[in-house]
């Protein structure tokens, strides 16, 4: 019943058969870079994340591994199910927020700044463990309001250019904007290495770039609006295979 409600309201959503990951819109060379773990620069962050995973830190002197063991087993599927509702905090959290919370709450270490090298490395390492798995976002009465809020943001015109996300990514995907092909905006590979950034970044970084692009005030990192939008985008991409850490132009 709840799931039916979640699916009904907006008919311009891309039909499942037409859903394509951003990697489908890339050049052959960029796709080859993503598919080769020895050439994918995102793997440098995954490597560092792997090292951080076993490093004891904080007042509690704990490593991630001390509670979570081998990430290859315990973190399988985790990134493909985020953002999710954290009962302990009573709110919706992104993967980065959950890692940061573990850092302060369980390890007693200072929080990791958004987009910091360490937080991205841990997120990349966790996300790597979900590669090849389908995105699964569970919507229940706790998360339905956040999904609705994210969907509303996605369809709301914003900024000086007065554009809504849906106008490009639902109505005009596949066409070109300023010489670049417009993808469908499925976050199948985050955190990812963007050639334009010459570095790895989170989905929130990309969303902020988009908002600046339409001359809207970008929400701060970690803002509920961004996490809700992440939730909606991941839900909209449900069933698609996770490909983190991806490479994008």
């Amino acid at each position, binding site marked *: 019943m709840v799931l039916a409600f979640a699916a009904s309201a907006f008919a311009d959503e891309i039909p499942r058969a037409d859903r394509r990951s951003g990697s489908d819109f890339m050049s052959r060379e960029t796709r080859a870079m993503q598919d080769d773990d*020895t050439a994918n620069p995102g*793997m*440098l962050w995954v490597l560092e994340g792997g090292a951080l995973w076993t490093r004891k830190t904080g007042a509690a002197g704990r490593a991630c591994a001390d509670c979570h063991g081998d990430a290859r087993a315990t973190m399988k599927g985790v990134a493909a199910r985020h953002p999710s509702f954290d009962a302990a905090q009573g709110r919706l959290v992104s993967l980065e927020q959950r890692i940061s919370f573990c850092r302060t709450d369980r390890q007693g270490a200072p929080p990791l700044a958004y987009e910091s090298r360490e937080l991205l490395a841990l997120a990349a390492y966790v996300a790597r463990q979900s590669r090849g798995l389908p995105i699964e976002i569970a919507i229940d009465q706790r998360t339905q309001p956040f999904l609705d809020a994210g969907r509303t943001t996605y369809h709301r015109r914003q900024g000086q250019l007065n554009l809504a996300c849906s106008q490009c990514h639902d109505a005009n995907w596949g066409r070109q904007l300023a010489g670049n092909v417009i993808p469908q905006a499925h976050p199948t590979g985050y955190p990812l290495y963007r050639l334009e950034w010459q*570095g790895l970044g989170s989905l929130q970084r990309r969303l902020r770039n988009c908002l600046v692009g339409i001359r809207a005030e970008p929400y701060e990192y970690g803002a509920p609006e961004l996490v809700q939008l992440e939730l909606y985008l991941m839900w909209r991409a449900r069933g698609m295979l996770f490909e983190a850490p991806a490479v994008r132009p």
Partner: protein
Amino acid sequence: MASALINVPERAKRGEVIEIKTLIAHTMETGFRRTQLGALIPRDIIRRFACTYNGTEVFRAELHPAISANPFIVFSTIAVESGTLEFHWTGDNGFSVTQSAAILVE
């Protein structure tokens, strides 16, 4: 940053041409960019990469600001004997990374 990703075949036949891939984490700051306030961000790049095979240099490259971040260098060499391949990157501000990989040549 963790450092470098090296891909060397574990074993090869004597005389076989092998492909070696290297990827190193480095921002490769060109020295041409400016901050929001207009101050020049100083150059900080890797300048040299060299690979030695049991002590003999088999590949060398000089890098310049045009090389993008996290340089990916792929080259080939002939598998002559079993031993160690050593990879050495040096650059500005005392940047120096060395990694090695073993190869079994039969």
